[in-house]
Structure formats: C-alpha cells, structure tokens
C-alpha cells in the first residue's frame, strides 16, 4: 500500500472500442508458408480490421475455446487480409502450422498504441528483431521506410530464412552472431533503436544501449482482455504502472529501469 500509481492506468480513453476492436470476427486461413518452426499466415474475414497501425497486435483464438486468446503483432494488413509471422509452438500457434486452408480462426483487435505515436519521428532507427519479434518491424520497414537506417533480424537457426526473403537474417547457428552482437556493427551514434524480441535479447540490448537516446523496446506478456480493463499486462515504468495492451507494447527504454 502507499505506492504511487500513475494516472495512465486510470484515465480511460473515450469510447473508441467498436466493431472488430470489441467483437470476435471470423477469419479464414487463406495462405500459409511454413518452415519447421515458423509460419507466415494470412487471415481474412469480412469484419477483420484492415487498418492496423504499425506495432499494434490482434488477439486470435481457434474455435471458441475457454482459454485466454493469443496475441500476435501484425506483420501487414490490407484488404487482402492480416498477415502474421508466428512461431508454430503452443496451443493456437501449432494450429497455424497444421490447420487446412479455409480453417476458421477468430480475431479481435487491433489493440495497443502504434509505434509512430510513441517514437520521436525526427530520427532514423535501427530495427532489431528476435524470432517472431520480427513481425512488427517488418510492418514498420514497409510502412515507414524513411525512418529505417538499418535492420537486424536474429534467429537461432536458418529455419525462417525461406519465409523472410525480403530481409537478411542474422543466424546464430551459421555465423555464431546474435542480434545484439550484430547490432554493434549496424548502429552508429545519432541513430535510435526499435527492438522487439524475447526478453533476454531485450535485456542484453538494454545493458549495452541504455545511454543512447531514443531506444524503444516492444514488450510481451500474456494478454487477458486486450482492451485495457483487466490489468493482466500491467508493468512498472518510471512514470507508474502502464498496460502493455494499451499504452504499449512499445516503451522507451528510459521508462524501464528494471530492464537490465
């Protein structure tokens, strides 16, 4: 008791949750390219949002099961559908790898604050992805190419390279280099960093680049409601508690002193 709690968790946005942002929408699996551990899937349905800000995520469930849905950052969104890049392990994820074309999933969203609303736009960035954390960064490079100064996409193995031909990957099993190590030769003073990937990668990056201005990291947690009410994804920041699903998923590294 007696802790300071930031206003952000209690000042609610005015009513903006309508349509696909509130209700589950049926979406068919209409395209898939899969490797052993990853898949690039396209979901399409009449109610599924096509206007998705870079960095926003959707919740997906397979049939109306009684568990928590899964959150996925959007890799691209258009009238063709929502494209996701996912690791095919886990309850919903493995369905992406095995379900026949035409299988119906349910989708709601998009949620979260677009990256562009959080970053300083008078700077260029090195994008650093780890595994399926590449998804929102691939969305970023496509929509905001003028803000991109360099890219590093780290993977343990070369498994995903057939799926991500548009970029070059940093593959640890091939040249022994991990994303944060590769970053050292790509980043130069004056550039910002936007990173999305597993927490150990973000911690390594935070230790090395804490003093740099404009470093942003996209955080992950098990998402409950997705709309900011359940506080299942609240995290501590230097300005109080904030929600990954609402104020996030992108946070300035300087707001996260615990990430080391």
């Amino acid at each position, binding site marked *: 008791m007696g802790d*300071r709690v930031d206003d952000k968790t*209690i*000042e609610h946005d005015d009513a903006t949750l*309508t349509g696909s942002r509130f209700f589950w929408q049926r979406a068919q699996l209409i395209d898939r390219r899969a490797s052993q551990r990853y898949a690039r899937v396209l979901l399409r349905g009449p109610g599924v949002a096509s206007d998705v800000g870079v960095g926003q995520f959707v919740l997906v469930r397979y049939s109306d099961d009684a568990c928590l849905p899964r959150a996925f950052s959007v890799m691209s969104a258009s009238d063709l559908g929502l494209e996701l890049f996912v690791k095919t392990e886990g309850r919903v994820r493995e369905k992406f790898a095995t379900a026949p074309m035409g299988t119906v999933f349910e989708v709601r969203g998009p949620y979260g604050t677009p990256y562009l609303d959080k970053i300083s736009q008078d700077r260029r960035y090195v994008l650093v992805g780890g595994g399926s954390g590449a998804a929102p960064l691939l969305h970023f490079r496509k929509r905001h190419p003028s803000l991109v100064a360099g890219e590093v996409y780290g993977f343990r193995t070369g498994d995903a390279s057939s799926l991500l031909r548009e970029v070059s990957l940093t593959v640890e099993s091939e040249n022994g280099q991990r994303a944060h190590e590769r970053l050292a030769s790509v980043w130069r003073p004056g550039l910002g960093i936007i990173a999305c990937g597993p927490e150990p990668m973000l911690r390594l990056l935070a230790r090395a680049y804490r003093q740099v201005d404009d470093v942003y990291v996209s955080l992950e*947690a098990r998402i409950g409601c997705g*709309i900011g*009410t*359940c506080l*299942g994804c*609240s995290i501590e920041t230097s300005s109080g508690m904030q929600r990954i699903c609402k104020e996030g998923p992108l946070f300035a590294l300087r707001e996260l002193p615990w990430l080391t």
Partner: protein
Amino acid sequence: MADVGLARLGIEFPSPVVLASGPAGFGCELASAMAFQRLGALTTKTITLEPRRGNAQPRLVDCPAGALNSIGLENPGYEAFVERVYPKVADLPVRRFFSVAAASVADLCALLHRARALDGFDAIELNLSCPNLGGAIPGADAATVGEYVRAAVSEANLPLLVKLPGDSGNLVQSCDRALTEGASGVTLINSVRGLRVDWTSGQPFLDRMYGGLSGSAILPIALARVFEVRRAFPDVLIVGTGGVNSLGSLLEMLMAGADLVGIGFGLMVDPELPQRLVDELELWMDELGVRAVDELVGTAQRGGLDVH
C-alpha cells in the same frame, strides 16, 4: 415476451447478468460497445484506501479451461478514483456495485466513511477473498468475516454484499456471520487458489507461487458453493460468480440458487459475452415459456424447472 429483469433489495435489475469485479475495470473502456442497459449491474474494480501497484509480471498463466491470475488488486486508491474515475463511472447507463477491499478493519472503516459521499452506487461489494495479497484471506475465517462486516455495515449507507472464497473456510458459517452482522447478500465465489509450474525451468510460473484460478474450470466449484449457501439461506441475495461463459452455465448458476450471475473471466476472453448472454437467456425463456427469472432461481433445490 419473457422478462429477464428481477427485483432484489428493492432494486430493479434489468437482467441477472452482472459484470464481476476485476476484468471489466471501471467499465469505461467498454462504454461504446457494451449494451449496459441490458445488464444487471457493473461491479467496479476493487478499490482500496491507498493506491496499489499490484503484483509483478507475469500476472496471467494459461490453464486448461481458464487462467491463473495474480493481479494483486492494482488500483489507483480511493482519492484518485473519486477524482478521476468516478465521474465517468457515474455516467454509465448501468446499475453499479462498488467493490472495496481493505488490509484492516480500520482501513475499511476509513474507506467506507468517505464513500458515503458517493452517489450512483446501488450496493457495496466487500471483497474478503482476493487470493493474491499474501497472508490470510479474511473471508476464510467466520469470526474475521463478522468483524469486517460489522464495521462495514456501521459505516456504509448502502446494502452490503460480501464476496467470499470458494475454497477456504466454512462457507456456510462465514455467510451466517456476514448475514447476522447485517450484510444484505453474498457474492460466491472469488477465484480459486491454484499453482502452475513451468517445467522448463522447474519453477512456479508466478512470483507469488499461487494465483487465482478462474474460467470454466471453476464452474462446478462455484455451483456447489452457491447451491450449499442457497440451501442454508433460502432468502439471501446470492451473486453467483465463477466459470459462467455460456447460456447453459448461466442457467446452471441461476438454477443452483444464484439471483444474479457475475461474469469475470468470460468477459476477459470475450467482451461481447455479457450482452449475448442476456439476449440468449431471453430467447430461451421465450421458447420454453418461462416468464420470469424468478422461476429459474434455485430450481435445483425445489424439484426442477416447471415449464408451462
């Protein structure tokens, strides 16, 4: 046309479907899309006297048919709630229950004393059963329940509902003490203490080891508690909460003895669920010729459903 409304404690509820405390927050995010007018009531997220940051991540762990949560009553505290959230809550077109918790009887008295100034709530829900605070759960001990309820009734100017745990203590005794001390009803149950172990690390998933299990996994536990308390107290107001996520489970909860049915985890998964349940209940009652919700409440205690 069937009437899904019902009257309890002198209050007309538009339907028996209530948003349980927690997953709905203060209801404000839901305002644009939720058919609040059709809902029985919104129970606001539990407020404590002082702000609470809640527990560290992870706060949610997936489970078969539900999830473990360890939110830890994150809330802005009473003063900030009144200043910044209450005006918005008071505008929502729905009946409202004000959920409160306190670490001591003195804190509870201070909180409820101040809350006397709040208009716009129909009842207070005293949360004596949050499993995520560490230490003893007040609702697990009948004597402690009695102390809290006596203090709350002396300070509050609204009917008092007491939210009790479904998995600890002697529930009928706790209810008895709560009612003897002046509570108007009980909310049964809170999430159930559970544990999951991450077998890749060999450690519990949650920092605090235990969390509260909610979701359809706890439906039978909640039904049993509601049934048991309804049998012991035929006339008390019961808000049955735990694992309801379909018309079938809503009906089960009413038939086991709940007057109102709380939706918690079900809302987290599907924000549309509460309003859909009201619509489905109405259709179902129409089809079967059930005219009033009162015909459904407690049928499992009195020979089953009497279909016209």
